[in-house]
């Protein structure tokens, strides 16, 4: 479904991602692990078109998308739920969600249905639906960001550290939600530091270090890998 081959990204003179190959099959839940600054967000931004790649190709459903405009990429079915959420702070929760369905704006009914689904999925959002997004707490905003991403009914969802700054109970719920989303048919590419929880729900994983992939394999393999355990799970 998604295939990155030999992708590199530069920031000015500094190479943040170097010659990376990643594949995601339809229906999979794949996790990218890696410490801070490893380049996970950079890869996500490159896939979403927010960041230019300096070399390599990105194929989505067999068509190259590197260099395409971000809106085109969203239209093709990839949506990112970014690390710093990128919400519309002065719009209400409901308006934010509706904006999430921008690419389906002509299908009013479907938008309303998705809205109901998302509000059902996150009861707290339902409660706060008329509040400005900026006044929500960090965790609430994270849920809104995921909800907003869901509104566009993506084929592939990129989730960048959804558990950051969340309470344990919520983290648990969050991973359940992600798993559910995946089971409902959305392919998910997930970046996480919380490797243990992520690997528990993922099919496969890649481990990043300083801009390149150092280990890859199925969740079980990675969970069993000692180095991975020591560095990212802390067990």
């Amino acid at each position: 479904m998604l295939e990155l081959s030999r992708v590199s990204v530069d920031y000015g003179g500094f190479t943040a991602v170097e010659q990376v190959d990643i594949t995601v099959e339809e229906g999979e839940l794949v996790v990218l692990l890696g410490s801070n600054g490893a380049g996970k967000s950079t890869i996500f931004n490159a896939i979403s078109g927010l960041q230019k790649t300096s070399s390599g190709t990105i194929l989505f459903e067999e068509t190259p998308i590197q260099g395409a405009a971000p809106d085109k990429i969203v239209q093709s079915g990839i949506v990112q739920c970014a690390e710093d959420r990128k919400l519309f702070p002065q719009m209400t929760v409901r308006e934010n969600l509706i904006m999430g369905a921008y690419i389906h704006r002509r299908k009013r009914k479907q938008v309303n249905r998705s809205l109901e689904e998302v509000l059902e999925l996150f009861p707290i959002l339902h409660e706060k639906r008329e509040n400005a997004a900026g006044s929500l707490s960090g965790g609430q905003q994270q849920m809104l960001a995921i909800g907003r991403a869901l509104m566009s009914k993506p084929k592939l969802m990129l989730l960048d550290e959804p558990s950051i700054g969340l309470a344990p109970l919520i983290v648990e719920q969050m991973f359940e939600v992600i798993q559910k989303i995946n089971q409902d048919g959305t392919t998910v590419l997930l970046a996480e530091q919380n490797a243990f929880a992520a690997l528990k729900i993922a099919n496969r994983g890649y481990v990043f270090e300083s801009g390149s992939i150092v280990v890859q394999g199925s969740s079980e393999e990675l969970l069993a890998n000692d180095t991975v355990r020591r560095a990212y799970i802390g067990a």
Partner: protein
Amino acid sequence: MDILTQQLFNGLTIGSVYSLVALGLTLVYGILHIPNFAHGALYMLGAYITLTLMLLWGVHYWIAMAVSVLVVGLLGVIMDRLVFHPLRNAPPIHDKIAAIGILLFLEAFAQLIWGADYRTMETPYGQVIDLFGMTATMQRVLINIGAIVVMILLFLFLKKTYIGSTIIAMAQNREGAHLVGINTNKVAMLTFMISGGLAAIAASLSAPINLVFPGMGHLVILKAFVIIILGGMGSVPGAILGGYILGFTESLGATYLSNDYKDIIAFLMLVVILSIKPKGLFSREGF
């Protein structure tokens, strides 16, 4: 003739013009965070284009205005693409200086094409009418009605249409807008288009009661900035209200306080308001 009603009407008329100009400015300033000092030049060009069409080809006033709206709107788009788009990551002060550069250029350009002299725009609506004891020309009535219609349309557009809300969304988080699939470049262009169009409408409506000359933008631009700050940056209702407040302050201030100092009154008012409410009357940003 009751001086108070007459002056209220005068204030309304000036307020309408101010509001229209301020609306275009507040969109670009509040949404793209560009303090577009060249907006005054767009206003000036709007008047010249309408005038030229009317004089040169005898085009009807309304059609000339429509063309002017398109042309100036496009000019706004070009400005965005050539200047403000490349500057989108620079701090706002850069936009300010770049806009001043554009302003200088466009004024010199207008002087080159049309000369530095004053022109008059004749419209089919010069007749004097008596309106509940007030004297007015049709043109003045038109300014008021036109302004209100345009404002309502704009408000509906922003509030009720998806495209309208993309403008608002982009105002709040450009990257967020990207992520939901909005083409932010298009939205920026759309915003400039609307802003330029509003300037052209304002100029075409008000030119017949004043004169057309290269420096005519200066008359309104400074006040428009005062208005959008008064009304809260990026706030559409704020710009409208601010425009009318300023219009009435000027007409009533000139009548009952002092003609010489009426400009000071308006600016002092802003200073006082900002001293009390540092973020303007409508302190919540947005709509």
